[in-house]
């Protein structure tokens, strides 16, 4: 179990030649961990997840899963090895029902009985999806769609989940529930979580460890609560200084 890790070592990546988005990124996720990436818009947070999934070209460095190299592997291969990815924004298939969306999550699996069995397990974890099983996905609320997106990747029984802004566009009450679900996935199912969050306070509170990215580099790292308490980080990345000013007026 000690070597069971998803790791990035000195990773550099770019969308177009010459414009480096990631510069020497090194980080590790184990199956016991919830890791949260925070930082300014355009810092490269989403690109870290895309680099792991082979959706952006890694020019230097190494990405490995349990010691085995997966640098620039195709997304479907990485998924088969146990790494799932929930992209940013709403990406459910809107015209398909909840059940059909979940079936699509198991598209690459040959054993369809197993897919059905896993869908039942997902329904136990997210009862709201069971209740809406026959509803078209576009009729679901934002929180339900986020649960469907998480459910859809769980069909593959992943060991790691990469989640890009799970709380995006969600009402406060639902946001809290989504973070609770993420913690449950980690604690009960031993799924290592690497998530990107702009809602930095709630993201870091839910996480064991956090990284602050800026201009494609890791500027700070530490336990989630430590980062939250750091005055410099609060001021530079969490809106700390300005937020106080807002409250005074």
């Amino acid at each position, binding site marked *: 179990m000690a070597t069971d890790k998803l790791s990035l070592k000195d990773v550099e990546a770019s969308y177009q030649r010459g414009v480096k988005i990631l510069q020497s990124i090194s980080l590790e996720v184990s199956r016991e961990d919830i890791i949260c990436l925070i930082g300014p*818009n355009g810092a490269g947070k989403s690109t870290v997840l895309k680099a792991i999934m082979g959706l952006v070209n890694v020019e230097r460095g190494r990405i490995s899963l349990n010691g085995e190299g997966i640098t620039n592997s195709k997304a479907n291969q990485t998924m088969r090895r146990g790494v799932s990815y929930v992209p940013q924004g709403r990406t459910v298939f809107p015209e398909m029902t909840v059940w059909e969306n979940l079936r699509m999550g198991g598209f690459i699996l040959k054993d369809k009985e197993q897919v059905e069995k896993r869908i039942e397990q997902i329904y136990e974890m997210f009862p709201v999806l069971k209740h809406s099983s026959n509803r078209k996905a576009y009729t679901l609320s934002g929180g*339900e769609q986020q649960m469907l997106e998480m459910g859809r990747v769980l069909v593959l029984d992943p060991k790691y989940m990469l989640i890009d802004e799970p709380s995006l566009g969600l009402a406060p009450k639902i946001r809290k529930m989504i973070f609770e679900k993420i913690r449950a996935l980690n604690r009960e199912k031993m799924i290592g979580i690497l998530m990107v969050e702009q809602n930095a306070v709630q993201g870091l509170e839910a996480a064991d460890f956090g990284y602050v990215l800026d201009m494609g580099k890791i500027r700070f790292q530490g336990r989630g609560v430590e980062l939250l308490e750091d005055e410099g980080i609060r001021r*530079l990345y969490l809106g700390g200084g300005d937020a106080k000013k807002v409250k005074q007026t």
Partner: protein
Amino acid sequence: MSLEAKAVVKDFGGIRAVAGVSFKVPEGAITGLIGPNGSGKTTFFNLVTGFLPIDEGEIWYRGRRIDGFKPHQIVELGIIRTFQITRIFPKLTVLENMLVPTRDNSLMHLVRSPKKDDRPGKALRLLESIGLSTYMDDPAASLSYGQSKLLELALSFMVEAEMVLLDEPFSGINPTLQARINEWIKDENSQGREFIVIEHNMDVIMSICHHIVVMHHGQKLAEGEPPVIQQNDKVLEAYLGD
């Protein structure tokens, strides 16, 4: 009174998305429109801006009934909006995107002698303050999700509008920039521009809004000043949680 909704109804098939909503937007205010996901907030924006026709009720703006107007007519009245999912032009550069909404197609503009054009300068200042000026010559498609949201927000400031409807302007935006955008909105408001803001970030809503309307299941659940809303039991239960 600037904007007023009177018993507005909108149905989608069998679903009543907006179920008889009535409220008045106070003159000169920043008004927050909050509520659970799926409560009808964005649909309400679509009705006000003419993107969707209303089924029943009336919408009034400064003494004129505006339901039934087309989106471009609504813009001409001085009401503009942003979208939850951005609608920028991916192949235009970031700077070009900023200039699109300021284009003047009127005949008068074509026959008048050209005035000094300060729009590019204003666009650059706005881009600078949200950290996008280094990307001004890049196609907008190269921006990240959060940066696209910032671009759309910035271009809403390029238009001379009296009322701006912002649909979740802060989702996906870094907290430090959120604080800066807060200041923008308050500055513009102090110069007379009105805002209606849909947002789930309660710190922002409670700190910048003068008035808040809460929607739930297509209806108005509550209305009032921020401290009143924060302590409303119905709002706590339906939306804010404990």
